[in-house]
């Protein structure tokens, strides 16, 4: 899959999972995905200035009946931590966190950000899955949303360059 096809596949997965409200902040590796999100008429799309406000915006939308996803880079996930803890976890509010995994194995930049991503998710008790295979993406998104709704907590999907169609998958990863 190229990045355009991968983006369409992820957006189809979000739609099939019932997502209808999406907050985003760009990363160059998310460019195709965000373009596909913008074009999806079933989504209310909120472009953010800072990721933490997106946690609040999605929490508010959830309380009035929307099913929400927030798409950001892992640096933005770090920016969002106070809101994740004292709003999402404190009130038991589900949210699908779609986090671009900068500093993943083989990335030349953001090594420290990549190194701390999984430990911070673990420390917060947030279940997460590293997405590597474009073919599996829609089904994994659907399952992650079921998990988030049923446990009323955020669930994170780490978007690698492989799943975004920006480099070929390594079967052994």
């Amino acid at each position, binding site marked *: 899959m190229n990045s355009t096809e991968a983006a369409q596949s992820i957006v189809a997965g979000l739609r099939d999972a019932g997502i209808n*409200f999406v907050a985003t902040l760009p990363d160059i590796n998310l460019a195709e995905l965000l373009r596909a999100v913008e074009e999806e008429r079933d989504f*209310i799309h*909120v*472009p*953010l*200035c*800072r990721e*933490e*406000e*997106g*946690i*609040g*915006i*999605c*929490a*508010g*939308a*959830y*309380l*009035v*009946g*929307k099913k*929400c996803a927030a798409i950001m880079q892992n640096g933005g996930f770090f920016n969002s931590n*106070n*809101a994740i803890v*004292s*709003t999402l976890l*404190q*009130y*038991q*509010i589900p949210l699908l966190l779609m986090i671009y995994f900068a500093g993943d194995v083989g990335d030349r930049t953001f090594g420290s950000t990549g190194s701390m991503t999984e430990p911070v998710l673990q420390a917060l008790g947030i279940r997460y899955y590293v997405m590597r295979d474009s073919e599996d993406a829609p089904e994994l998104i659907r399952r992650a949303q079921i998990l988030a709704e049923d446990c009323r907590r955020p669930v994170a999907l780490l978007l690698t360059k492989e799943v975004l169609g920006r480099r070929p998958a390594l079967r052994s990863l």
Partner: protein
Amino acid sequence: MGAMQRFDCLKTLSRLAGDALVVSSAGAVTLEWNAARPSDGNLRVRTLGLCSSIALGMALGLPQRKIIALDGDGSLLMNLSSLATLARMKPKNLIHIVFDNEVYEASGKKKTATGEGADLVGLARAAGIQNALWAGSAAEFAQAAERALNGAALTFIGVKVGTERAAVPPYPIDEVENKYRFIRHVEKTEQMVILSTNLPASYD
């Protein structure tokens, strides 16, 4: 310091708010609003700064309903970028009210940046919120709130208030109960289903 008190403004607002959903910032404003208008349509915010953002999510998700954000200066200063996002999304049903007492009232009354000249209404306007104004008296506040509630435009109202706290009861419920009551209130008043559970697997 201005002669106006926050609780007086909230009592005025409670007579005008109708069935608006109200999000209130971490701090005494939440307790005072609960005393002025007790309702399951009130949501208390615990993350400093997030009041305006939670209200924006509600306003976009439920465009037919009036949403009021009761914010503070310390809170808004922590999330100034929310003003630009509010202006960008322009929800017609959102009224953002900021009680500016120029101190972190719940954190030892240290001065905020508004006490040194930062102008929140100026910042809101510069972010792109055209209907942004200071209410300089109780009458101006009542008039601005009434116009916003009867109108259909994103509105930002700043009010300089004193640092007094009204003698009001503590907030009666915890965060999780607040969430469930709020959602059930929205379901009932909007005649919609938000929370549902699935049948056990044995029914498949």
